[in-house]
């Protein structure tokens, strides 16, 4: 999607320095035409003079000009670079209005982007890439982000992993609320619909402390679509995918009822049958999804704005039938067989085992601008997560779920934001959360109630080429867990509190070079599953033991970022190191336990000191004839410092080579882009023998291609085609837990369109 951001030059004046005749100055201000908010930290570059500047917090900038034609580039994150040619002959005082490239972003992004220490190209997934991945689960869309992998259980159940961290070490913000429900086990996916997603962004460093104090890995911000246009906007989107014979359809209507009151309604339906690997069908891997979203935005006055969102996500996901196993010898037998037995065939029917999840979200947000420099925000959010797990049961007629969780979360958040002298920005706030969990069925997590109190502050200071940020977040958690033992309730009370801080320094070395360094100390309390889980994990044929005596994790992290952008070249590199004390992970227990079902490997949650070090790299080069080559690289090494062993489930080295070809006009097509990608994943060699049932799989290369275009005559119709795993390569993904049981997916061809009318 093209963004909809209009940049205005307000109070723009061209002043000449009399006497020199060659030196002029452009004093301007950048403003978002919709929200009227100033656009800070945009880069404005005069290519003729080879000098540039950045807009300050209030959007103002000062750019030198020369006599004659001046080619000016304006670049702001979240929108495409704008090129303007200004002809300067003599001094003029004028006001120029410029319509920036069409773009459908709302101000959430802009606010978040503005607050990032350094804008990295690789830190967001834009509309075109989201459109190309519409038929995939949202965590797989996030794979496009630097250093982000998805940790999967099969294909549909996936959650993001940032620089090797997952679960509650990674926060996901959906519609401005921290998504609740995905933090527990690996087979708890992310309940968010990509059809209603405008942009996905990665946030690391101090800004994460605005939302949470425990995101050691970082935050992923998922932003919903809201066009904020005056006219009625309707869209129809559909995609068909060959693997699983999937059909996806979505529609939305957006309308401004009055000038200040707008609403948007969106819904989508998805259905897939059994998926297939290059050589066989995977039994019971179909899924279906029904989602809806309703959003109202009301501008009560010039200074007061309300946002109301409500959404429901409902899914039923089949779980690979053969992954439901009885004991260690069943598992070993499956591991040793070359193909899957029994082989599946194609059907849309979803049998047991399966998961049936409903996630509803309600949010109301009020933003009040006390003055131009002081604003206030209040948010109330509620999330209801109902999760039913159906195991294979002895009696085929059983219709009650084996396990039913009902997780309710409510939160209230207040924030003040204050600008001082254009160079200081302070945000401070408090929030409170209340969460309860109730289960029925077999034990995995006890019932609990959790009360959290948070306080945070962020400070940002900009001076010349330097920009500093510092933030802290204080959290106090009271957890009451009720465990039933022999039909009586045993109360386990816990209290955790802690203080996290992060700081950063951004330095603009020259127009082309920027550098930033970030340092921080973040803590995380043990999760309820790490404390309490006890018993059998069906898919993994493992007995898991929680540990009531776990201490909080404390992570010290340092990262360095370097960015170079010159004409047709882009280079971004991030080095990071995280030392995590009391790092919690599942460790095998020896010998295997003898049970009524035979031998079972047992695992327990233990703590160690772990060291994460890695590099994420992006290089892009524009070549002649509209070609663009891009190279992405992610390298991560993790050591268990106490045990001198490696830690499992860490992403292997990954390279992404891609070449794209872009044409703005081709016969009857416009904005056509064709991309060919080779995703090269190496074997994870940092593995200690005997710590997993199956050693990490071999490396592989997947070839993917995508094509997106729109028609000159129907500008509102976008057509996209994509092909994943074109060569139908047989492979197993180390980060997919079902690698024990089957190959990963074979070729997948997707075709779809997006129509606006």
């Amino acid at each position, binding site marked *: 999607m093209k963004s909809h951001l209009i940049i205005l030059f307000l109070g723009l004046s061209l002043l000449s320095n009399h006497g020199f005749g060659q030196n002029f100055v452009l004093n301007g201000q950048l403003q978002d035409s919709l929200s009227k908010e100033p656009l800070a930290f945009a880069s404005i570059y005069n290519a003729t003079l080879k000098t540039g500047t950045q807009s300050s917090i209030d959007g103002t900038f000062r750019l030198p000009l020369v006599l004659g034609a001046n080619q000016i580039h304006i670049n702001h994150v979240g929108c495409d670079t704008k090129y303007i040619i200004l002809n300067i002959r003599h001094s003029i005082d004028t006001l120029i209005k410029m319509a920036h490239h069409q773009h459908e972003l709302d101000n959430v992004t802009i606010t978040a982007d503005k607050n990032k220490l350094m804008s990295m190209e690789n830190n967001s997934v834009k509309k075109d890439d989201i459109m190309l991945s519409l038929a995939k689960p949202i965590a797989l869309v996030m794979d496009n982000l630097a250093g982000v992998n998805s940790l999967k259980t099969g294909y549909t159940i996936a959650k993001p992993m940032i620089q090797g961290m997952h679960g509650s070490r990674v926060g996901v913000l959906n519609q401005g609320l921290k998504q609740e429900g995905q933090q527990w086990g690996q087979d708890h996916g992310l309940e968010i619909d990509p059809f209603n997603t405008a942009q996905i962004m990665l946030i690391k460093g101090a800004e994460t402390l605005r939302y949470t104090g425990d995101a050691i890995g970082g935050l992923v911000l998922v932003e919903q679509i809201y066009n904020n246009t005056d006219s009625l906007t309707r869209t129809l989107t559909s995609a068909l995918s060959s693997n699983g014979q999937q059909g996806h359809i979505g529609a939305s209507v957006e309308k401004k009822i009055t000038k200040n009151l707008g609403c948007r309604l969106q819904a989508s339906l998805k259905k897939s049958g059994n998926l297939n690997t290059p050589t066989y069908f995977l039994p019971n891997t179909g899924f279906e999804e029904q989602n809806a979203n309703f959003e109202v935005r009301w501008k009560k006055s010039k200074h007061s704005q309300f946002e109301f969102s409500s959404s429901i996500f409902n899914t039923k996901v089949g779980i690979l039938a053969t992954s439901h196993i009885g004991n260690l010898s069943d598992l070993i*037998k499956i591991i040793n067989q070359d193909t899957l037995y029994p082989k599946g065939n194609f059907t849309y029917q979803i049998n047991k085992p399966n998961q049936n999840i409903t996630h509803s979200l309600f949010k109301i947000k009020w933003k*009040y601008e*006390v003055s131009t420099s002081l604003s206030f925000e209040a948010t109330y959010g509620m999330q209801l997560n109902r999760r039913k797990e159906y195991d294979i*049961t*002895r*009696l085929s007629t059983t219709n009650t779920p084996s396990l039913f969780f009902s997780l309710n979360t409510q939160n209230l958040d207040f924030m003040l934001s204050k600008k001082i002298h254009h160079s200081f920005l302070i945000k401070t706030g408090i929030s409170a959360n209340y969460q309860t969990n109730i289960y029925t069925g077999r034990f995995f997590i006890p019932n609990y109630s959790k009360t959290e109190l948070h306080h945070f502050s962020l400070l940002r200071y900009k001076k010349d080429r330097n920009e500093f940020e510092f933030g802290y977040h204080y959290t106090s958690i009271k957890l009451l867990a009720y465990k039933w033992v022999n039909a009586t*309730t045993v109360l386990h009370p816990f209290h955790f509190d802690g203080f996290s801080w992060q700081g950063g320094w951004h330095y603009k070395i020259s127009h082309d070079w920027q550098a930033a360094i970030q340092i921080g100390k973040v803590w995380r309390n043990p999760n309820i599953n790490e404390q309490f889980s006890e*018993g059998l994990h069906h898919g993994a044929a493992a007995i898991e033991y929680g540990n009531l005596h776990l201490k909080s994790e404390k992570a010290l992290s340092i990262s360095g970022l370097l960015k170079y952008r010159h004409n047709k070249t882009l280079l971004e590199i991030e080095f990071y190191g995280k030392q995590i004390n009391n790092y919690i992970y599942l460790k095998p227990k020896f010998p295997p336990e003898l*049970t*009524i079902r035979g031998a079972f490997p047992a695992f327990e949650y233990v703590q160690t000191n772990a060291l994460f070090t890695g590099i994420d790299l992006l290089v892009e080069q524009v070549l002649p004839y509209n070609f663009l080559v891009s190279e992405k690289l992610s390298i991560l090494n993790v050591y268990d410092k106490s045990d001198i062993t490696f830690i499992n489930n860490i992403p292997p080295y990954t390279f992404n080579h891609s070449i794209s070809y872009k044409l703005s006009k081709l016969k009857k097509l416009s904005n056509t882009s064709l991309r060919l990608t080779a995703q090269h994943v190496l074997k994870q060699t940092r593995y200690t023998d005997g710590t997993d049932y199956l050693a990490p799989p071999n490396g592989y290369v997947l070839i993917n291609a995508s094509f997106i275009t729109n028609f000159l005559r129907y500008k509102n119709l976008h057509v996209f085609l994509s092909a994943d795993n074109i060569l139908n390569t047989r492979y197993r993904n180390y980060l997919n837990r079902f690698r024990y049981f089957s190959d990963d997916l074979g070729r997948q061809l997707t075709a779809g369109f997006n129509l606006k009318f």
Partner: protein
Amino acid sequence: MNKQFLLKTLTYLSCFAAIAYAISGCTDPSILPVQTNDKELITTIKIDLSDTLTGKKLNYFFRDLDGIGGKAPSQWDTITLEDSSYYRMNLKILNESNANAVEDITQEIYVERANHIICYTPLTVNAIINRTDTDGTYPLGLAATWKTGSNSLGEITITLKHQPGLKNGGCNAGETDIEIKFWTVIK
């Protein structure tokens, strides 16, 4: 900001919160719900043997009352049999995790006999075990005859497989619900 507006907003917000709370259900996590047990749990298997000649009855147990994990099995008998004898066997499968409500799972397996099979595998024990019940096509294994030979020592493995749609008479396919090795002495 005027005071009236603030008050009005707060009223709306608190109404909204109240409705939200009502929707979310005012359930208390400390209250014991109806069902918190694992319907699939098997804690006990009981081997009933009766000597066809003498009528002597023998019972052997495996018991792990807290299920998989946790405490070690509380009872794991060694099977002792007479040499050159002929026994009728019945297998009982139970969930005894709640002493006040013991569940007999044998019946469930019988109802689902088309999807279950029990296999008996003697190792270095001179015993021949023949299943005497069937699902109509394939053996089931809740009832069998045990024929012992000369004095010997070894183990008998009893396996219960859940084979939904996979049953082919063998014990290879499907999910293992029970797999226990009993020490066996014939004297």
